[in-house]
């Protein structure tokens, strides 16, 4: 198999600099810009890199604000309405600021049978927030998700990029306390 074609970093770099100079309130860090340029080399055209670019933007800026949509649309030479359409289609692109720790609890079949709903109740009580909400200190966001494909650890949750399980109403209390300590 042939490796990916060597990227022409010069061209991508020049265009990116052009966008940066347009006075946007958001812009990729140098490291992200390097990753972005490498990303472009994997696709036949810039526009095809939309999903991973948005994913990178969300990791960097925390959520996809209107400014981020416009920044990405200029990076990829797409109409902002197109980027907006894609962002609104996928639930994993966040259109509002999220907490530092985003807990996504599964309540699908296996997790539900293993007591997922009691875990959910306990989490809501512990955090003092409902589904789709963020704590006032900006530390936690809570969401319900469908199957995380980790039924062997049901009931389970995804916290940012980590999987945790099996959870019990008691263990989630400790879990939240540990996270709060880690976040301080």
């Amino acid at each position, binding site marked *: 198999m042939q490796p990916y074609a060597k990227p022409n970093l010069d061209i991508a770099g020049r265009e990116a600099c052009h966008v940066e100079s347009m006075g946007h309130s958001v812009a990729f860090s140098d490291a992200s810009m390097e990753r972005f340029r490498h990303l472009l080399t994997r696709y036949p055209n810039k526009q095809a890199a939309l999903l991973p670019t948005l994913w990178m933007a969300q990791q960097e800026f925390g959520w996809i604000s209107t400014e981020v949509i416009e920044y990405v649309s200029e990076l990829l030479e797409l*109409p902002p*309405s197109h980027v*907006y359409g894609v962002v609104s289609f996928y639930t994993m692109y966040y259109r509002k600021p999220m907490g530092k720790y985003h807990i996504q609890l599964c309540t699908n079949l296996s997790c539900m049978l293993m007591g997922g709903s009691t875990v959910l109740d306990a989490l809501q009580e512990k955090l003092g927030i409902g589904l789709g909400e963020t704590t006032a200190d900006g530390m936690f966001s809570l969401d319900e998700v469908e199957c995380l494909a980790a039924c062997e650890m049901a009931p389970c949750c995804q916290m940012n990029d980590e999987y945790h399980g099996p959870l019990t109403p008691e263990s989630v209390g400790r879990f939240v306390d540990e996270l709060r300590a880690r976040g301080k």
Partner: protein
Amino acid sequence: MAKVKIQVNGREVEVDEGLNLIEAARIAGVEVPHFCYHPGLGVDGNCRQCLVEIDGIPKLQIACNSFVKDGLAFRTDTERVTRMQAGVLEFLFLNHPLDCPICDQSGECLLQDYYISNGKYESRLDTDKRHKRKAVPVGPRVMLDAERCVLCSRCVRFCDKVTGTGEMRIVNRGNRAEITTYPDRPLENDYSLCTVDVCPVGALTSKDFRFRKRVWHLQSAKSLCTGCSRGCNVYMEHEGGKVYRYRPRENMHVNDFWMCDPGRLTYTPLNDERLDVAIVTGEERTLPESIEQVGTWINIAVASGQSDSVAVLVSPQSSTETLYAAKRFAKDILGGARIGGGNVRPAGVQDEILRRADANPNSKGLEMLGLSADPAAVLSAGGTVLLVIDDDPLGMNPDLAGAFGKFEHVVYLGSNENATSAKAEIALPITPHSECDGTFVNFEGRVQRFWKALTPRGDSLWSPTIMGRIAEFTGQEFGWKSVRDLWADLQKTEDAFAAIDYASLGEVGAAAGSGQPASASAE
């Protein structure tokens, strides 16, 4: 193009290779229901309404993305097809409001048409319908009702593919999906009203037209837009002597399926501020006595050998027939009066799609008749009678008032009351392009027909008829009873038109240069 033989519902037809099954069925006289496919926007395949049964393929196929090949046979009338169509309609109707009685699309709505022919079942939805935004202005000329949208994405593709502006988009997912514009970027391109034309349902409606007329009351005539020198083909839709809207008419040589918004709104002078009776020094008069007055002045000038004291100011807004009659009037009846015209309309916007800077529909016709476009030579010396035909030269260029003042009598032949008709000693009403047959020549030299839609308003007459009646006072006549008579002379006497036969112009016109009608689709 190579032809292939196919069978549609058991009937054999021969069609061009490469057509999709919707177009092929259309040739066979069969309509395949569809929402998302549009010949000007291509195949999208999202609505699933056009499924048909193709021989030899077990599953139903979408007709828009299946293409003819020799020997292919398909059916649109089987039990499976109609059941499937009803099923797709049921999904489209799940959250669709049943507000046809107050929906402006009613009567020209595909969803309504298809449902009436293949639907009419009880709703199986036992929860509330999902509600979305209603009566949202998505741009200065277009209103959105998101509940009525079937998400065919025609408007999205129009803004992406035709104008390249990309304002419209489908956002969200599932039953929350709706079309919208990006915040603070309204749908305001110069072609935005075409999204209303392509919208198969009542989701996008024209602010100019909505709630003004039920569409089933409208009658439609084939006509031309006079907003610029492109000459987009339109349907002029009217009722009770009033024009309500233009809709683009397909002509692949000129405007494809589209027209611009400014052009679409140029129908208003056909209704408003019309000059429909003869006016002599501010008083309404009968047409015969007004014509007699003009004829007397003209006759005196001719009889006293002072033809050159008469001047005729024509306009590139006029039809070819008006221009030709004016030319014959000046050259033959008067034996050498000054004649010429001016591009009085200020240059408009030109773009890469349709719009032309020259805002006159017949500049090319003026040029082909060998008439000067410079008013100075016509007006400079003054004289006895100035005949001003069509448009509003004084309103466009008030500086001409001085030159007009050097004539003893100013006579205006026009369709609207304006600065020029007010200044003229006599104003005679002539029919605009909604009230007579005729032609314009567009900037590419394509001679195109427009058809009489309405009976002439008030005392208005076809301008060659009025010029002919004036000519009678000098003892001469044109002898034209109709456009065809005039064209017989035009073809004989004007080299530039020699190769063009009025009868064969058809719906798409003919290019003047080639001498060949572009298509033989006669009326």
